């Protein structure tokens, strides 16, 4: 669906100049109009998905050249004299002529017989079928002459008839402009064009488009590339996660199946209640690191949280520490440190809470003070505190416990 709209724009200066010329003349006046014509095709997409194409044809009237007398470029029967037209135009080109105008005082706003004939002949002479005719008809409204009115309209031939085209007067600000400018303002001034040409290379690229627009387009393309890469990475990680989840699910299924099998096996042959599993590696590690420390080797605590040495594990699990837990052997406590531990036993006590703020600092350098540094009491209970507290009831000797 295509619609065609035509409109004529004339600046307030040009219209005012036309009026001024006629008001100072004692008869009708006529002349040629210069300007430019632009056509634009707009495609509006609506929810109905019907493509709506609009053709907008805008004619800009930029200048007028008045004839010194009437009937100067045509004769009595309306035949146009092209030489006279060139003479009137002088330095201007015929291509800039977009129409002609007539100002008639006290007549109807309607083209006359000769004006129609001249218009048709002028179209042929200038080879311009979009030629317009601007008609201005001032008249007195009151008999006393106190009020005058000026009617103006632009006519364009449409077959054998002449249709009026809407005229918009562009003043300092266009109030009807609601959206963005799609075309730059046209100007026939030589000085204006010279100034624009001088600086246009800073703003426009060789094909006439704005440079900033090109750069922004490039940046946008780069952003799109980065986004694409990030999307690919996310996709890969998601796929990995999906794979891992699948593996986890498979393992869980395997575990649950084995448990089920074990349960079945236990139900069938074993009548004794199941014993909790012992962490044999931990047990051997503690025995190696803290030999003779029954408190550490016990597996039971009282209701108050004190270990019960009676429940120490005395089973030999037949585990070779040197092969299964080799790192344990590197952390055995040196003899000097053991001596300090025996001597400073009485001064060991649980320090008050006000010193607990220093605990994070002290804890930060335990690795540095491992060789030859004394144990400092902190806000939390250490094994020495436990030993001190249990000595009251258990009488346990300080052993060669490693200090981490």
């Amino acid at each position, binding site marked *: 669906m295509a619609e065609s709209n035509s409109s004529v724009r004339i600046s307030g200066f040009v219209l005012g100049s036309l009026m001024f010329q006629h008001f100072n003349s004692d*008869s*009708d006046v006529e002349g040629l109009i210069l300007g430019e014509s632009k056509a634009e095709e707009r495609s509006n997409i609506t929810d109905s998905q019907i493509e709506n194409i609009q053709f907008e044809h805008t004619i800009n009237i930029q200048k007028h050249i008045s004839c010194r007398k009437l*009937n100067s470029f045509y004769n009595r*029967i309306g035949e146009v004299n092209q030489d006279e037209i060139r003479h009137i135009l002088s330095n201007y080109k015929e291509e800039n002529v977009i129409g002609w105008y007539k100002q008639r*005082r006290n*007549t109807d706003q309607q083209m*006359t017989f000769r004006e129609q*004939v001249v218009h048709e002949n002028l179209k042929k002479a200038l080879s311009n079928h979009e030629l317009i005719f601007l008609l201005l008809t001032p008249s007195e409204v009151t008999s006393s002459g106190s009020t005058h009115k000026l009617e103006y309209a632009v006519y364009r031939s449409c077959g054998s008839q002449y249709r009026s085209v809407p005229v918009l007067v562009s003043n300092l600000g266009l109030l009807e402009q609601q959206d963005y400018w799609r075309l730059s303002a046209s100007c026939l001034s030589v000085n204006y064009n010279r100034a624009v040409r001088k600086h246009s290379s800073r703003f426009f690229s060789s094909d006439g488009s704005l440079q900033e627009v090109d750069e922004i387009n490039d940046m946008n393309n780069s952003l799109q590339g980065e986004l694409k890469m990030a999307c690919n990475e996310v996709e890969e990680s998601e796929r990995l996660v999906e794979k891992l989840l699948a593996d986890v699910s498979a393992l869980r299924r395997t575990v649950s199946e084995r448990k089920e099998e074990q349960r079945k096996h236990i139900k069938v042959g074993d009548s004794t209640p199941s014993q909790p599993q012992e962490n044999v590696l931990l047990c051997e590690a503690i025995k190696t690191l803290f030999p003779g420390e029954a408190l550490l080797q016990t597996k039971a605590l009282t209701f108050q949280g004190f270990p019960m040495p009676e429940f120490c594990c005395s089973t030999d699990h037949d585990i070779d520490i040197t092969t299964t837990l080799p790192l344990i052997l590197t952390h055995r406590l040196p003899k000097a440190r053991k001596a300090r531990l025996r001597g400073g036993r009485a001064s060991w006590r649980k320090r008050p809470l006000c010193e607990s703020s220093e605990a994070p600092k002290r804890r930060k350098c335990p690795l540095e003070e491992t060789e030859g540094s004394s144990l400092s009491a902190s806000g939390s209970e250490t094994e020495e505190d436990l030993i001190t507290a249990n000595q009251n009831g258990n009488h346990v000797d300080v052993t060669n416990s490693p200090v981490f």
Partner: protein
Amino acid sequence: MSPEVALNRISPELRPLLCSVVRNGRVGLDSTNCLRITDLKTGCTSLTPGPCCDRFKLHIPYAGETLKWDIIFNAQDPELPPDFIFGEDAEFLPEPSELPHLVQWDAEDPECLLQLVKELIQQYHQYQCHRLRESSRLLFEYDSLLEDPDYGRSLEIYAGHKNSWTGEFSARFLLKLPVDFSNIPVYLLKDTALDPGEDVALLFVSFEDAEATQVFPKLYLSPSIEHALGGSSALHIPAFPSGGCLIDYVPQVCQLLTNKVQYVIQGYHKRREYIAAFLSHFGMGVVEYDAEGFTKLTLLLMWKDFCVLVHVDLPLYFPRDQPTLTFQSVYHFTSSGQLYSQVQKSYPYSPRWDGNEMAKRAQPQPKIPNNRQ
């Protein structure tokens, strides 16, 4: 606006051109209506001293309508030819090369504008005839009349615009009937001070629809003819027959009018003959008679030493209608102070007699009452 007032407001350089238009301007068939000028305006500024009007509306009678054309001159350039706006006929665009008085415009020739208007009317007529093509029925009417040389040369057509509501196309035909009025006595002028113009009979036929189902004819006569025929009610034309066409109807109206004119002419001659016969019989007793229209004769007769005035009144449709004899006493008055008179219509008369026979047989004799003998 009277023509003289209009001329006084026109710019002096343009006045001669308009003089011939307002004084001698008769275009078209309806020569009884002159061209009129209204809405005079100027193209000069209001500071220009008058008279400086150089544009106006010209009213042109055409085919029963009145065309209102704007004519635009320029008072500052009076040598330039005028421009025209053809009112509501915006589509009418004459060919300028076929207007000789525009091509050879001469501002010094007072008749130039009038001739140019006539040439434009001719092209306007062609334009209206072309518009008849919208209705084949009406085009047939036009073509059939055009073929007849009696009617084709004196024909004006106005093809109206289509009614935007009904969609109907209407047209007006104005024909000048080829009836000879030259033998009608000149004495029937109503007002000798006015020039009645050419004696003409126009038949105006209005087609209100393109299929010619609503046709309204009307006969227009110039004032002298209308008076000669006995006024506007004297002649009634027949209604347009349903399904009929102009080429049959117009000759019918022509014949009717011709018969009427012949009857009036013959009546005039018959009256003249009658009066002449009475003059020869009663020559010594003639008091007075109508020497132009021959409608009245007064005699002074004596019967047995009794003088009596006899007034003979001849009706318009004499000899079909019998003349009236009125006897008037020269001695006696009525109670109202009028001379005693007596009308007598019962006397020997026949419309087939000639004048002499009528005069001889009439022998006007008063019936005098017994007490007066």
